[in-house]
């Protein structure tokens, strides 16, 4: 994929004016992670309501245009959805939203950092909640596997 194809208007717009940018006080879910590559560094905040849906989501941090654009899109996809549906979001969903399916392996880490954080953070949220129940449920194992194999 040549560079000119990557930097289309949507990416530039999202990166200049990120959606859901900010923080939440006392969020139900919080996680930080980063990429050693370009120093992308993202904090993800989420609140969960009684229906087990993501009622609020914010992200904060620094990153390249691809990272910020993809994180914006991901938060849009996440907000208001049931947790069970959120964990089904896969990398193609995020990449195709911004036409980045053919991104090379070095840059794919920028695009998918926030999805990795999303999956790992929900994994630990659910693990904590299920402490007394079956912590090794198939759903959780699969979620962790998904998160570790994004890139």
């Amino acid at each position, binding site marked *: 994929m040549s560079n000119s194809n990557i930097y289309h208007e949507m990416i530039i717009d999202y990166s200049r004016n990120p959606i859901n940018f900010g923080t939440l006080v006392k969020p139900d879910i919080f996680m930080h992670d980063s990429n050693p590559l370009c120093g992308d560094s993202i904090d993800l905040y989420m609140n969960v309501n009684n229906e087990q849906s993501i009622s609020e989501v914010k992200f904060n941090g620094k990153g390249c245009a691809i990272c910020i654009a993809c994180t914006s899109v991901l938060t849009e996809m996440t907000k208001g959805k049931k947790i069970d549906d959120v964990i089904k979001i896969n990398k193609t969903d995020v990449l195709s939203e911004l036409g980045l399916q053919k991104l*090379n392996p070095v840059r794919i880490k920028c695009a998918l950092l926030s999805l990795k954080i999303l999956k790992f953070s929900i994994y630990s949220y659910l693990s904590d909640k299920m402490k007394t129940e079956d912590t090794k449920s198939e759903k959780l194992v699969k979620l962790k596997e998904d998160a570790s194999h994004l890139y």
Partner: protein
Amino acid sequence: MKTQTTSINSIRKDFPILNRHVYGDKQLIYLDNASTTQKPIQVINSINDFYRNYNSNIHRSVYSIANEATNAYENTRNKIAKFLNISDPKEIIFVRGTTEAINLVAYSWGRKNITKNDVIVTTEYEHHSNIVPWQLLVKEKQAKLKYIEINKSGELCLEQLDSYLECGNVKLVTFSQMSNVLGTITDSKKIISQCRKHDVKTLIDGAQSVPHMKVNINDLNCDFFACSAHKMLGPTGVGILWIRKNVMEEMIPFHGGGDMIKEVHKYDTTWNDLPYKFEAGTPNIADVIGFSSSIDYINNIGMDVIRNHEEDLRDYTISKLDNIKNIVIYGSKDSTKSGGIISFNFADIHPHDLATILDEDGIAIRSGHHCAQVLMEKLDVPATSRISFYVYNTKNEIDKLITSLEKAARLFKL
């Protein structure tokens, strides 16, 4: 048989060094493959191609040739996973070779998990690389190192392992899948299943086995596995360490530096994801890419062809050696239980003298203790001569070896 000879001849054409002559007109006969193997032109070209066309650092830079280099490097990891039947390529760490792999385990797993009075079990036929790192560790931790002995046919006395395991303090059993001196193929699955019953970790040194026989890591069910590229037609300075994921997750870093980190602050650092946490600094990119070509080359020939050819050559060589008086062969003569390695002594000729006499005829064999002095003590010899084969060796070369041995007998008036 004719077709096999033909195909071996065409394989030989891929190895430029096999055309070499030494001492004027002596064609090189290379029989030291347990030490290192020769490289086919395909491997040499792939390294050449990297330096000529896409030399760049991996994982960090985002430009085109860096993407090509990163792809080639990571594709090697995937190829090795397939070659050794490893389910997750992220369980593979690139290292300098088997020696570094074992040291990594001794440091990053051993320093965290071994404490006073714990026991590490190894065997009498190990290479120094599977002894010395454990000696260093047990001295530091006041732990103990124990050996599984070998019997007269050069096989491990596995009932001894049972008695070690019964004592309850064993934390790791570490052994080579094929002896680099005797060629003995270890009954790895038996050892591992014994260890599993006692919840004891197992490490396999696959330096000699991986190049010469089919290895299936999933099926073996060990915890650590190490091997080196240069013993399987690949370049020097590259090897792999496979670690079962849940074990790797609990290990401390080996080397600190670039690429193994996620975030570095003045007094605090977080580690990169696995396996990169264990790959500090710019790795040996060119040779990892060369390693990939050597696996392609072996896959094209087929491991069964390699194994059959070496069994055949070993049987042939042993039958010829048996006709010479005063040759003592160490280990088993049964080639179905051995890799393509024969260690021997010839009357009272010191192996170094014998190797020099053979060298005058262009024949390269190894003489010495083969980095296995513990085994030499057991065999009660200071050294042995060692012949070791690979897929490009021929019976014609063995005939020349025999002629040269007969010359040595005459010189030493045997």
